């Protein structure tokens, strides 16, 4: 699709301080493109939640973003342990995060439900031992 702009980001799990840089970059790009602030906010929150999840649960991975005239599609691919029960993981408050992650301010079991709440479409494809791919779309 010629009117789509594609971006790719490597998400490293080694430096928690740098988590969120990809989401920050996409937020800046959308702002410069003049996308509506409410849509930018939804994309930023959903992508940042996903990026944090990749860092704290899945040893990092890659994020692919396509910006189209009326939609942003984000695909977050990790090589983590996979999600055993997606329905359970989608429940607010369900968390498998260790104490160390909680002390950093994350892992309250709000990430996936908040990603769903801030997107128009969300799909999770996960295989145990192989990894998880989360695809999200925000329309504007």
């Amino acid at each position: 699709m010629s009117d789509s702009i594609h971006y790719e980001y490597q998400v490293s799990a080694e430096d928690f301080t740098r988590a969120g840089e990809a989401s920050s970059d996409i937020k800046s790009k959308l702002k410069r493109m003049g996308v509506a602030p409410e849509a930018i906010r939804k994309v930023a929150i959903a992508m940042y939640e996903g990026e944090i999840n990749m860092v704290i649960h899945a040893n990092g991975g890659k994020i692919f973003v396509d910006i189209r005239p009326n939609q942003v599609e984000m695909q977050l691919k990790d090589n983590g342990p996979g999600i055993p029960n997606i329905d359970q993981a989608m429940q607010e408050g369900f968390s498998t995060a260790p104490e160390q992650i909680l002390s950093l301010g994350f892992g309250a079991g709000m990430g996936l439900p908040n990603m769903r709440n801030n997107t128009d479409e969300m799909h999770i494809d996960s295989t145990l031992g192989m990894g998880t791919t989360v695809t999200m779309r925000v329309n504007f």
Partner: protein
Amino acid sequence: MNLSDIKSLLNASVLTKKCVLDQDVHSAFSSDMMSNVLAYANNKSILITGLYNAQVLRTAEMMGMACVVFIGRREPDAQIIELADDLGICVMLTRFSMFTTCGKLYCSGLNGGVPSER
């Protein structure tokens, strides 16, 4: 209420180089769990927290928040302040406790900005 009023009420010091003190704010959200901030806070809020790490600033950035008030007696690392300056987010430090900070701001007219509490 604007950021200048908040600075005075909390007897706070401004740690960032840039801070637009005359910008208005109508609500505040206090938490050490960034997960809760991302899920429940209002984008026009200020963030009050005792958690000191870079993700506090990233969270405020994603939420479109103008100011982070850190609770405590020590300043956050220079790296955190530098990130706040890059992002254009004002950072303040108050020695009041979380409870007193929230109480002072609530009594002066700020609300939680959470729709279900209105």
